[in-house]
């Protein structure tokens, strides 16, 4: 506590001195990345908005069509399916990776024998490229592959189906490998957060007679607020940009049953060469991501204020 007080008393004086004259080096450090960012991020992003109100095949110049693309989106059954799948993906992939990652972090936070090994094992999938992950899981799912063999071994052969080719199971069969990877990543974020909690708080709570559940609910979770914001942003962004694993396993098929907004955008842009329409889908993805994250940030700031 003392440490906090001393920093707050020092900062105002420092800040005043700095704002008097900006060092040219500092200005350069801000402006150069800003210029690079403008060319490579902001300008293309703005152009994306412009393309979304045009019809464009990538060869001839784009023609302005007003809101045609958005009107078409509203009546496009494939887009609606992809939107629903993206929501399912957000809830299942996001929800389960938070639960799984947090659970694993709690189990593995105490230093015990082999705990380093378990942490490393859970984190390993993060290191693999998703395309490699997809190759491994494809072997798992293939007809007479590991999944089928396992089911046969426990007498559940009636459940066997072409996992990635059955429209009932394709989406879930793709979520599983994505989760397998994401849980390790979220676990590491939570582990870092858990390490930062002052053990004195837990000790004080224990002295006051709080049981394990009460300490989790009233000490650990509130203390993780900062990490939660990071995890939420990571989860939302990762869900909406999930593309490679779906594309390498099913390409959104069979017949759009595992289509996400991201895969639909890609196939619209680079297979159907309808870049204007694809830009409109990209804008929708952008708005969705912004809405979820802004919603959370506004709430978080309001609570702090």
């Amino acid at each position, binding site marked *: 506590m003392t440490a906090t007080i001393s920093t707050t008393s020092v900062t105002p004086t420092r800040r005043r001195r700095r704002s008097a004259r900006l060092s040219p080096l500092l200005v350069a450090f801000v402006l150069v990345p800003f210029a690079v960012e403008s060319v*490579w*991020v902001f*300008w*293309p*992003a703005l*152009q*994306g*908005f412009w*393309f979304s109100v045009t*019809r*464009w*095949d*990538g*060869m*001839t110049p*784009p023609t302005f069509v007003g809101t045609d693309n958005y009107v*078409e989106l509203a009546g496009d059954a494939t887009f609606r399916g992809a939107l629903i799948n993206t929501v399912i993906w957000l809830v299942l992939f996001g929800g389960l990776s938070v639960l799984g990652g947090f659970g694993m972090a709690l189990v593995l936070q105490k230093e015990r024998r082999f705990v380093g090994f378990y942490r490393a094992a859970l984190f390993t999938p993060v290191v693999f*490229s*998703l*395309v490699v992950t997809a190759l491994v899981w494809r072997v798992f*799912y*293939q*007809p*007479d592959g590991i999944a089928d063999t396992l089911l046969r071994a426990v007498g559940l052969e009636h459940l066997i189906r*072409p*996992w*990635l*080719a059955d*429209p009932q199971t394709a989406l879930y069969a793709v979520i599983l490998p994505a989760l397998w990877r994401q849980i390790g990543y979220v676990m590491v974020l939570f582990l870092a957060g858990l390490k930062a909690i002052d053990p004195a708080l837990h000790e004080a709570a224990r002295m006051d007679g709080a049981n394990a559940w009460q300490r989790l609910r009233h000490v650990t979770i509130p203390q993780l607020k900062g990490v939660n914001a990071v995890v939420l942003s990571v989860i939302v*962004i990762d869900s*909406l*940009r999930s*593309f*490679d694993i779906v*594309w*390498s396993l099913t*390409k959104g*098929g*069979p*017949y*759009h049953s595992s289509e996400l907004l*991201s895969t639909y*955008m*890609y*196939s619209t*842009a*680079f*297979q*159907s*060469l*309808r*870049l204007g329409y*694809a*830009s409109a889908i*990209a*804008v929708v*993805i*952008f708005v*969705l*991501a912004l809405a979820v994250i802004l919603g959370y940030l506004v709430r978080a700031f309001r609570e702090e204020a």
Partner: protein
Amino acid sequence: MSDFDPGRRRFLGHLGLAGLGALGASSFLSACASSASGPTTSNGSGAVTIQSNLSSPQAKAAMEKLIETFNAQGKGTASLNTIASETFRTQLPTYLTSANPPDLYTWYAGSVANDYASKNLLLDVSEVWKSLDDYPQSLRTLSTDASGKQIFVPMNNYWWGFFYRKSNFAKWGVQEPKTWTEFLALCETLKSKGVPPIGIGLGDTPWVASAWFDYLNIRINGAPFHRELLAGKQRFDDPKVKAVFTRWREALPYFDPKGKAYPFQEATTALLAGKTGMFLIGTFFADAAPKDALGDLDFFRFPIIDPAVPLAEEAPTDGFFASAKTANPTGTKALLSYLSGVEAQEAYVKASSGIVLPANPKAKASDSPLVVKGKAMLDEAKELTQFFNRDSSDALQPTADTALTKFIDKPDQIDAILREWQAGAEKVFKG
């Protein structure tokens, strides 16, 4: 030429797309729009740049050898850029529209090339064709655009057919069928012996199903209707198209149920291992076959359904077209003349592993019985078609993949499927 078909895209492209998010995507899209610079290439008399998607090891080596020989002849210099197939496909429009494009490209004949030609992006190569008098008329027509000039130079083509293992057919005591009725009877016999009669590989390579659609359509409605349909001049919800699926449905019970889940490469393995009876596929599948199995392979043509319909076969043609904006048209045409010559075509056929037929009628194909039979089949055909995506566009292919895989799963819903297909196709034609 293994890398030419849509399913053989290796999707190396998506490694770079790992971070495709909302903003990332729009920047990616616009990157295509705003990039106006191609690789720096020839100015006047400099080297001719050839952009090749032949990235499989043998094909790449074969191309390198051809270019080396051309350079040694002293008629000009050329340099080869080999690019991963999927990257090549998505970048091709960018190459062609850039201010300083590469000179020469490997690609497909037919509708795809004509489409670029109609946008004035391709070089008129009629001059090269003047020395190709002995090429068959079918190839000349295929290489000619709507305004009557040649814009494409074919290198080779290959064929599709029902491939099977001779030893297995002998073991099962069955013969090649000629008609649809005989074909269905063969399927019934194989099924009674416990062998899934028809292999297919739709997992990851759903475009393989288009071969069934193409063949049934050219056997029932004929090649001209097929081409019109694929060009948007006929409708997919037409009763004539539905008739195709009524026929197809007769064969559906004989398809290998596992074929939905694995790609055509694994369907090849299943065929070779005797786990399926036969497999409608292009000759490129042999790339994935062990050498000792090749001698045991044979094929028969897609059975005749209506003898009144002129015989047509699928013969996808691969070759080259050049950019209209090339700074060195003379050098580019010299290279094209060399590539269309007997010497280069024979060298390519010899060096590349695939079973292909050289486009130059004087060039000798491999003399294996399989190639001789394939050549005879194509020579007998009155009409040649290319393949679904080549007779229409890569943009229309996904609509076919969706419709056909759905039909194989849910044949009862054919009317709804054809309506959706028509709606999807209209969007593609509208742009």
